[in-house]
């Protein structure tokens, strides 16, 4: 085989490999998006017809609007979702509550930030840790305090990851 043929084969292999990587990433993203869309629908964050578009507008990482006061490792990177603990863990029985505004309907919602308890801290990539502090107050307002272990009242005390559950509409919204 000539040098020229070798170069062509190498280039072709690289192109196929890159294509496969991108295809896999795209499929993965679509699968994630499907799960997230289900979450948006489940919580009736927005009217049914707009679920897909709203979901698309929301970054599934820390930019998700309900993470506006998230101080912890998001469970959606740890085998669960924003509103679901990973298998084998237990939801915290107490939580703190923040207020976040949904950019789509401009309404303020009450968000219960529960930890998922009983597993080692989810050690996933750095972008899984969200450090958003809107409305956070020190411990003298303990119901608005995001720097605590909210597994504090559980039997299993270690917080593995954190969730953001939309539990109501804030007064005046």
């Amino acid at each position: 085989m000539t040098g020229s043929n070798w170069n062509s084969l190498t280039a072709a292999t690289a192109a196929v490999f890159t294509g496969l990587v991108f295809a896999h990433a795209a499929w993965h993203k679509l699968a994630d998006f499907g799960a997230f869309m289900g979450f948006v629908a489940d919580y009736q964050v927005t009217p049914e017809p707009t679920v897909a578009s709203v979901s698309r507008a929301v970054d599934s990482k820390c930019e998700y609007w309900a993470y506006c006061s998230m101080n912890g490792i998001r469970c959606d990177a740890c085998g669960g979702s924003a509103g679901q603990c990973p298998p084998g863990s237990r939801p915290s029985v107490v939580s703190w509550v923040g207020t976040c505004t949904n950019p789509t309907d401009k309404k303020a919602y009450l968000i219960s930030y529960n930890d998922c308890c009983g597993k080692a801290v989810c050690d996933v990539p750095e972008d899984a840790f969200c450090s958003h502090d809107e409305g956070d107050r020190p411990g003298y307002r303990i119901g608005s305090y995001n720097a605590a272990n909210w597994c504090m009242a559980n039997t299993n005390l270690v917080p593995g990851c954190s969730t953001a559950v939309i539990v109501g509409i804030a007064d005046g919204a």
Partner: protein
Amino acid sequence: MIRIAGFFMLASVLCACYRSSATETPFEPQHLTVKPAIDPGANVFTIAISESAGAIHVFGAADLKYKGSMSSGAMGQTLLSRDGKTAYTASLYLKRIVHGEREMILQIYDVATLSPIKEIPLPPKLAMVDTLEAMLAQSADGRYVYVQNATPATSVTVVDVIAGKVTGEIPAPGCFGIYPSLRGDRFSAICGDGTFVSYTLKADGASADRAQSKKIFDADKDPIFMPSARVGADLVFISYQGNIYRVCDSGPAVKLTDSYSVTAGVDGGWAPGGAQLIAYNKGNNVLFVGMHPNGGNGSHKQPAKEIWAYDLTHKTILYRSPVADITSLAASDARVPVLYASKPKLLLRFDVDPDAKFAIKESQQVYNPGAWNDEIILRP
């Protein structure tokens, strides 16, 4: 041929060495020992919190040389005695590390030998929160150690460390933090309605008399941070909006003595932020504050882009030193102070120049172990 000659030369050298060693003192194997104590001198302690095992790391204040560590349980809080000779931690031990039967204990350490010397069981109510000086404190005479609880109902466990036992639990509903008075067995707490409540222990340490202050700050519009500075007889706090709240805790109830803005007239929306975000230099009555621009709702934990040296005597900004993402501060008391600071994974030392309006200049940085390391304590 050269190789053969080299072989014979090497062999002759080895033989000579063997003959020589055979006639001299026999080989003495080394034995592993334990260094009996850390090197003397003032120390900088950094507190690494963890969901499994925590640590108190000890550095020399003069050179930031790492001296060793003391180990604690999970999600603990740390206290250093005023003379720096004794350390305390209140932390959690779970039977299966991440679940199982819980045990919360107060551990007492000898700093010189970095060794635990006593432990006292605590009620299993310890506040498991980010490290804060106000979560574990001692009475003026050192007899009592106060432990912050949150279940999330808030209370304070009182431990007589001389007798080695818990003497009582003081309910503190709606209030948080432990700020001991300079005299007597009294501590104050910050409350969510903007007041402070002071608790004066009764003689047996089992209960306390309670005295509530007038409203001092607005927890909705201008909440104060938990870290404080002891300035003379007063405690100084700073708020999210950059206001100083100076309170006196020498009486039965806390009183506001002064309040003013450190940011008034400054453009750029500068606001205080970080973890242990203020540090007081007693020698010059100067407060160092970690500041960030464009402050707003949720920015209060942003690391500092500038350290402001603020003159508490004349209520003026002396100097604004640019820094790179500092989260916590501690300052020495000297007339020519040293400022210590932390950011993720790093402990930094800044020289401070009183002749240059307290401008700071980084002189050293070292690796600071631990994933979460937001508290710095200085002791002689």
